[in-house]
């Protein structure tokens, strides 16, 4: 079983976030970056599957802030290959990122692609479905459990309201991971440092151009505190009507 895990670095929310002068992005000068929590879960699930069924795990990431550190940590945790896709991916949308990743992944043998279902700084939470689209494979997102048996994969997906569905799907496919079965493992610093010295960080040139971003940022601002709350009452239909009127008035 060969598993590919696209990961990425996101701003560390431990630091206070500031909007930059353009008003459309974070002021990134003082930002700290860390691996997206969901990607960490995707990697953990991949490592658990490898421990159960053998095979290999490849962590792949688009070039970006501190990405080497993230890939070395993945290697220390047990990823067999770590690949950095080079190119200019600053501010890339999920559409561009998925295209660039898919271009590289296409040329590699794989059974599963596991990635975080979303990240703190993505706009649409569509990275997994976009990857599946460009790779031409089936896809399931918001996954909380993966079991593999005889070329088939059984996937647990969470819905709202506490509903869980179980899917059976055939390989290869892309899964957007919400949570791994176990808490992502701790990797001791000695092993990360060892990986920094010994691991072979492969570099592949990549390109995700030529696709639409799907959405764009018109303004970025901190949540504004409102002047109070208005409770809507009535039947569902009446409330919906009042809501629609309010939204229209603000547009």
């Amino acid at each position, binding site marked *: 079983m060969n598993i590919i895990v696209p990961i990425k670095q996101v701003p560390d929310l431990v630091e206070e976030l500031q909007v930059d002068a353009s008003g459309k992005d974070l002021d990134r000068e003082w930002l700290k970056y860390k691996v997206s929590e969901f990607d960490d879960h995707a990697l953990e699930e991949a490592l658990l599957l490898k421990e159960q069924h053998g095979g290999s795990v490849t962590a792949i990431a688009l070039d970006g802030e501190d990405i080497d550190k993230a890939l070395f940590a993945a290697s220390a945790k047990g990823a067999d290959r770590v690949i950095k896709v080079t190119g200019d991916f600053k501010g890339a949308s999920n559409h561009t990122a998925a295209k660039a990743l898919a271009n590289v992944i296409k040329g590699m043998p794989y059974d599963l692609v596991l990635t975080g279902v979303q990240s703190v700084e993505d706009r649409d939470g569509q990275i997994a479905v976009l990857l599946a689209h460009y790779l031409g494979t089936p896809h399931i997102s918001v996954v909380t459990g993966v079991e593999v048996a005889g070329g088939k994969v059984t996937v647990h997906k969470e819905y709202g309201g506490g509903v869980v569905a179980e899917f059976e799907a055939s390989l290869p496919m892309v899964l957007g991971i919400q949570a791994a079965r176990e808490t992502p493992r*701790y990797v001791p610093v000695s092993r990360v440092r060892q990986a920094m010295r010994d691991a072979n960080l492969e570099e592949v040139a990549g390109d995700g151009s030529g696709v639409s971003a799907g959405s764009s940022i018109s303004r970025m601002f901190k949540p504004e505190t409102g002047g109070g709350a208005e409770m809507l009452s009535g039947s569902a239909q009446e409330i919906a009507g009042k809501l629609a009127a309010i939204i229209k008035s603000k547009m």
Partner: protein
Amino acid sequence: MDGGRFLYRRVGYERVFIYGFWRRYRKYRRGKDADRFNNLVGRFFKALGAMATNKTVYKRDSYAGAAHWMIFWGFVVLFIGTAIVALDFDILKPVFDQSILVGTFYKWFSLFLDVFGALFIVGLFMMLFRRGKKPPQLDYKRPDLKPEQYDRSGYQKDDKAFLWLLIVIGVTGFLLEGLRIAAEGMPAFEVWSPVGYVLGLMLGGFGPETLHPYVWWFHAIVVLGFIAYIPYSKAMHMLVDYANLMFKDDLAAKRLPKVSPEKMKEGIGYRKIDDFTWKELMDFDACTKCGRCHVACPANASGAPLSPRDLILDLRTYADATIGNGTSEIFQQTFSEGVKAGKGGKISIAGDIIRADTLWACTTCMACVEACPVGIEHLTTIVNLRRTLVDAGTMENSLQDTLANIGDYGNSFGQSDRARAKWTQGLEFKVKDARKEPVKYLWFVGDYASYDPAVQQMTRKVAGIFEKMGLDYGILYESEKNAGNDVRRIGEEGLFEMLVEDNMAAFAKSDFKEIVTTDPHSFNTLKNEYPEFGSSYAVHHYTGLLCKLLDEGKLKFSKKLRHYKVTYHDPCYLGRYNGETEAPRKLLRALGVEFQDMRRCGANSFCCGAGGGRIWMDDSKLEKRPSVQRIEEALEIDGVNLFIVACPKDYTMYTDAVKSSGNEKRLAVRDIIELVEEAM
């Protein structure tokens, strides 16, 4: 008498002894190097002193200490005396037709031997009596296993055999003397053997000439049997424990062993029995099961699955089974099949032989190492095994998160490293930046003092008092990282080294002469462990520095705080680890408070339960948290109203314990700095 046959037998006993001794020696040779051969002469005499005085046995158990002293010196004197008699009787008389055991020398010699012989027997009976009272430290009940999972009756047999063999040897020795004196017709000069003389008077009517050879043979065979028995029993402690004391590291636990670069590469920690050092292997054999560590341990006392005694004994059993050529003792502990099998066939030392929850239960308070009379370094072994768990990522999620936080931000709170000096905001003065201007004292603030909102209040008070006294001090602001004391004791050696490197780099960029800290944990590692990484600064705990300033007249109190009745909790890392018990008490005396120590104080203080990373682990499974036990101990003092601490973690732990045990109205927790501020 058939001298030839006796001689043959005697040689047989010796062979059994030598073989047993050699087997043990061969076992230790399998261990890794331990770097304990420096200052051999000093080590030799220091251990000799400890052995001759029995002071490590006497410490905190004067009854056992006195009894042991009598047995020890009785044994030594009788051994030497018997050797002199043998020399006189078997060599000097038949070969040279000479005797030294005549005249005045013989009289004093006889008296001396009789007195020590009597002490020997009295000591043994004192021990027998003590065992009869079943003190808790001699209870073999384990906190981690159910009674049906292990069998310690082997140890009990060994305890009894050792004691009774010595009693039989002592009593038959005296009987023999009495019979001889009676057989010789009670010569007058033999009153110099008072015990033997009295026995002679009593035995005169029982045919002493006939009885003597039988008793002689019996005594001789028991003695020789005992010699053969030594290396296969707890009697081995007579030899191993001297060596163990001699090779003990004075900084054991205070300074943990470094990990070699090769070991860092292949994975930290111990995986096979050969990974242990020869000193650790000797530690396992040195244990006499006196149980002092067992009753001193806060984990054991709070129902956690750890007893330092059982940990050492389990490792002894394992070492014997793997590299000891079977058992080294006649009487062993045994385990049920379930325990022996471990998990999944492949046995791992850290995990199966010693369970992970056992290793994680340790608060690294060092009470075991401090209590051990024979120089066992439990804590080093525990941390070495924890390293294996860390390498495999086997730990609680909360601990894992904390380690990740310390790795990412340099603090255990998971807050931005740039917020480290936020506590200085709102002070009426500016705390100097040691990176930008030269200062005399670098104040190493530490995580809890920097980030914990409750402790920050104390930190600001410390700053205010430093300022008031005109102390030339500064801090490292966001360049300071967690000092790594507890990180190292968790077993995350790579992270510890990273923190040391970062802090040392910040030190190098700053200009200061000495270091002061309020945190005993940081104090310990800065003082004892950083020097191995190149630091050469003098390190002070704030209580020591305040005392010094008090002596110099720079710290002055304007009033006496007579209205408080206080007790003081010695932090493990200050009192036990670093012997600083006087400075805080001196401050309290100068403050004029009414002061009374708790039952356990000074180096014998009882841990709050926070050390060695425990503060970041779940303690909800404990029967009664050590901090709550400690508060109850403080409340044994009549009329006490303040519980004084000198450690940020203690402040957090005890404030919580006082609340959760519902004692808020009776007792308040105060940092000593609060009293200092009040009295200034």
